[in-house]
Each structure stands twice: as C-alpha cells, then as structure tokens.
C-alpha cells in the first residue's frame, strides 16, 4: 500500500528524496494511528520535544547567555515570552537549550543499562539456581531498592562531578530492573515447547537466544526502558538541582529551577517553566512506556484466548484417542 510509485520515480528522479520523506511521514502517521492512544500521544509529544531541543539554536529568539541587565526578572511580555531571569537572560531560549543535557544523559544511561541488564538477565536465566545467578540476583535485590540519587551522590563525591561520572553513577542502579525482568521472562520462555524443539534440533545457545529469546522478551523490556527513562530524567534534574549534575557555564532544567527558587516569590514563572518542561518530557516518555505495556498485555491476552479454542492437551488425551 505504501510502495514507492515507480513511474513517479522514473519521470522525476530528482524528487526521490521528497517522495521518500513523504513516504516516511505517511508511514509514521499510519503506524501512529493504529497504536494505543497512550503510545501515540507520548511519541508525538516526545518527538516534538526532541525536535525543539535539536533545533534550539535556530528557533531560540535570543542568545541563551546574552544578559540584558535592564530587563532583570521581567514577567512574560511580547519581547520575552516567558520573561527573563535574574541576569536578564531570556527564559524561553534558555529552556530550549537547557533540555539537551538532561535528555541526552538520561537517554545514554537508559540505552546502556537496558542492554547490559538484559544481557545479565538472560545469562542468569541460563544458569538459574547456580552460584553466579544467586550472587547477581541478590545484588539486584539490594540495589533495586536503593535510591539512585544517593548512589550518584556518593560516586560524584568520590570522583568529582562531570557528565561521564553522572552517566556511570546512574547506570550502577539503572541496570537492575532490566536484569530482573529479562531473567524472569527468559525463564518463562525457556519452558516453552519451541525452545525444547530448537534444542532438540541442535541449535546453538547463541542462536536460540537471538532467534527465540530476544524477540520474545524485547517488547516488555522496551516498555520498561521508557518507563524508567522518565525516572532517570527526573533524577538527572534532581542532581543538577543539587549542583552535582550539569556544571556551569552549561545549564539544564534542574539547575535553572534551583537558580529560580531564590526569586520564586517575585517571579514564580521562572521556577514553574523549567519544572514543567521536565514534567512534560517525563510524562511523554511514561505514556510511550505505558502504551507499549498495554499493547503487550492485550497481545498476550489475545494469544491466551486463542489457546482456549485450540484442542488442548487434555482433550487429545481423552477416551477417544
């Protein structure tokens, strides 16, 4: 249905990129339209936020660091849509640039921890009940309840602040839920007939993991990734708020919020705006995660209900057989 039109490509070879772009957009819209509303809403908001953050340099009305000392702490106006801060810098411009740090740090942390946690979980499931599994899973039990702000705080205290330290210290805790979930999902799948069949056919462990296990566990894990993403975003903001995340002269939403609190009674919008930005981004990611989770659940439910109509093991073992 969405195949490229061959005649159009032949007649006007130059417009290939335009056609390709149109096709991508149409396809994206089509996919979005068929998904759970929560997923659609989340993806739309999140894509909008990402676009704004990438294009921030060009769409920001002012230089985010330009100080206009005559217009300090001015309220919203036609010149400054969200007002100015204590140094007369445009809040809207700073807001657009300020999201880059939190969102990129949280994204890097999530990608690394999801990958690492999944690998650990799958390996643990392979050796379920063994020493390695026991030690790793108890570590997970202990770390999973541990607040990541605390761990990050201690590690930053030891090594000193910086984006690399921040990413590292967040990963220390962030991989644990993935390991636990990947392990239990893999255990569930390992008991399925098609795994036994693959084993009987002589498939290698790696083949089974990549061909059968990963495709079956990635959906709930993807949902978990997005759900945890929002939490990491908030944590990065919290550390910046405490002065341990982003370091000056760079700034982000958490640091802006902390700076604005000194003037909160005179310029409430100054503190409201960056917090709201964190909230909207976190909400978008949560919506994506929740949408994926609901879709996964309903898919599983469908599979279960199909099973009811299939001849079950019990009936085939009945008196007629």
């Amino acid at each position: 249905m969405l195949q490229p039109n061959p005649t159009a490509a032949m007649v006007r070879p130059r417009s290939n990129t335009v056609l390709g772009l149109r096709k991508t957009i149409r396809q994206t819209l089509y996919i979005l339209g068929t998904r759970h509303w929560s997923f659609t809403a989340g993806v739309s908001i999140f894509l909008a936020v990402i676009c704004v953050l990438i294009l921030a340099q060009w769409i920001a009305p002012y230089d985010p660091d330009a100080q206009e000392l005559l217009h300090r702490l001015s309220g919203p106006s036609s010149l400054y849509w969200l007002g100015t801060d204590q140094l007369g810098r445009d809040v809207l411009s700073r807001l657009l640039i300020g999201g880059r740090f939190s969102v990129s740090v949280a994204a890097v942390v999530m990608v690394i921890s999801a990958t690492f946690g999944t690998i650990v979980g799958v390996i643990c499931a392979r050796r379920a009940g063994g020493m390695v599994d026991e030690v790793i899973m108890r570590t997970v039990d202990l770390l999973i309840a541990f607040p990541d702000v605390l761990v990050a705080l201690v590690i930053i205290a030891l090594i000193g602040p910086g984006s690399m330290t921040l990413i590292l210290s967040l990963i220390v805790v962030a991989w644990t839920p993935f390991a636990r979930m990947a392990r239990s999902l893999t255990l569930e799948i390992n008991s399925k007939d098609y795994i036994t069949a693959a084993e009987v056919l002589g498939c290698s462990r790696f083949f089974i993991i990549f061909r059968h296990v990963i495709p079956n566990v990635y959906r709930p894990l993807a949902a978990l990734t997005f759900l945890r993403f929002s939490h990491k975003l908030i944590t990065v903001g919290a550390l910046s708020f405490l002065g341990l995340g982003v370091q000056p002269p760079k700034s982000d939403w958490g640091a802006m919020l902390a700076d604005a609190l000194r003037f909160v009674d005179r310029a409430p919008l100054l503190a409201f705006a960056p917090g709201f930005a964190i909230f909207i981004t976190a909400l978008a990611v949560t919506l994506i995660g929740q949408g994926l989770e609901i879709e996964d659940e309903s898919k599983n439910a469908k599979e279960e209900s199909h099973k009811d109509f299939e001849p079950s093991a019990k009936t085939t073992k009945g008196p007629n057989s």
Partner: protein
Amino acid sequence: MLKFLFQRLVVLLAALLVVSILAFLIPYLSGPEPAQMIMHARVSDLAVDPDTIAALRVQLGLDRPLAVQYLDWLGNAIRGDFGFTFTDRLPVSVHIKYAFVVSITLALSALILALVVALPLGAIAALKPAGKFDNAITFLTQILVAIPEYWLAPMATLVFAVYLQWLPSAGWAGPEHVILPALALALRPMAYFTRVMRASMIDVLEAPYITAALSRGLGLGQTIRRHGVRNAMTPVITLFAMWLSGLIGGAVVIEVIFSIPGMGRLLYEAVVNKDLPVLQGTIMCLVSFAVLMSTITDFIYVLINPAVRIKDASA
C-alpha cells in the same frame, strides 16, 4: 523455606561486608592522604609541618597495614562508632541517630499517605479493567510518576506557605512541618502502589473464593473489603518495605528544599563539606537498613502467605 531465608541472609550479609570495605576505603580513594585531610579539617593552615602530620598518622594508627585498620574500623562500626565529624567534632553516631529518626518519620508519613490513597484507587481500577475509572486512574498514575518532586514542592510551598500562609515553608519543628514534604514525597510511591494494587486485585477477583463469597449473597463492597483487599495487599506490603528503605536517605532533594535534618541532607552535606566519617557512617547505616528491610520483607512474605507456609510444612 527456612533454608532459603538463611541463604538469602548469608548473601545479604556478604554484600554488607563488601559495602563496608568500600566505605572503609572512601578516604583512601578520594584526594590526599587521610592523615593530611584530618589535619586540614582540624586547622585551617594549609601548609602544616610534615612532621606534625606524621605524628598524627602514628597517633591515629594510620601507619598500620590496611587490613588491620579495616578490622579495627569494622569493629567500631558494628558498635555504632564511626568517629568524629570533620565539621563540628561531634560523634558521627549522634548525628546519624537524630537524622534517622527524622527521616523515618518523614518516610512513614509519606508512605502511609500514599497507601491510604492508593489502595482504594487500585481496587476501583481493578473492578473493571480498561473501563472509564481504570483509564482515568491509570492516566493519573502516569502524571504522578512524571512530576519532579523538587518542582512540585516549591510550587506547593509558594501556594500554601507564601500566598495562603497555612503551612510553614521549611524547617522541622512540629506536625505541620511534615505535611508539605510528605505530600511531595508521597506522589511517586502512590502511583506505584496503585498500579501494583490494581494488578494484584485483578488476579484476586478471579479467584474462586470471591465467586463463592458473592454467590453466598455477600455484597460486592463487603466482598472486596473482606476478601479482596486483604488478599491483594501482599505485593503492596512488599513494595512498601522497599520504598521505606529507599525513602530514608533517598529524599535528599526534598530534605534540602525544606531544610529537614534527615539522612538525605546529612549525606548531601557530608558530600559538599567532604566530611568523610559522616559519609562512611551514613552509607553503612543506610545499606544495613536496606538489608534489614529486605530480610524482614522475606519473613513477612512467608508469614502472611499461607500458600508458602503450607508448602513448607508439607515439604
């Protein structure tokens, strides 16, 4: 089952031991040598005579092998002695004891508030999955999870403390000081409790004893209160214990915003002031508490879940 609990305990204690080694090594991992740091903490003169530092090193036993020092330190730590702080020269244990009580008060108030709201919400959502109420409640939990507490707290302070002047804006003096921070802390656990309660309630409602109670003529409300909630609560209790150990110390930002002298702020100030004995003490205290809670949760799980108990008796 007892063997399983014992095994868990052994592994957790081993983990605690590893953490204690790391905590002990903190002064050696960060910056200059410990004797020099202690000297700097005592006198503001940065160019202290090397002989004085050497004398201090001998006096404090810092010239002994690391293993001996560690055992010495661990022995004291088990008795609750972490030495004196660098900043006000009081015993670290005095600070920790006070901060721990403050933190546990705050965490318990927040979690109880969360539980009181979450249990009915989760139960209502479970009655008709994907129904109107369920969708609304699910959306509400998503919003609760996405709110940064360090944004909500100042905004709530602005409204309730500055504009309306109903509540104090910061400090820790009476029950009215607990309300705003507890509210800010309660939102995220509230969302998680609701989700878990909903999921477990959906499972419970399918159980035969619910059908039995309903067919006996017990009203829907009564059935849910008597049979549903009680049975669905087990996973929520587990989560409650997890959050309790998480919020003690994990409430750093809120404690800093409201200047509450709890564990989180103690740790934060130790980090900012490079007060290493306090850092060691709080880390050990928090990890021990996490281990304790984890063990208690396992025991509770065995105690309130008859299925596990019966299996154990028959095995």
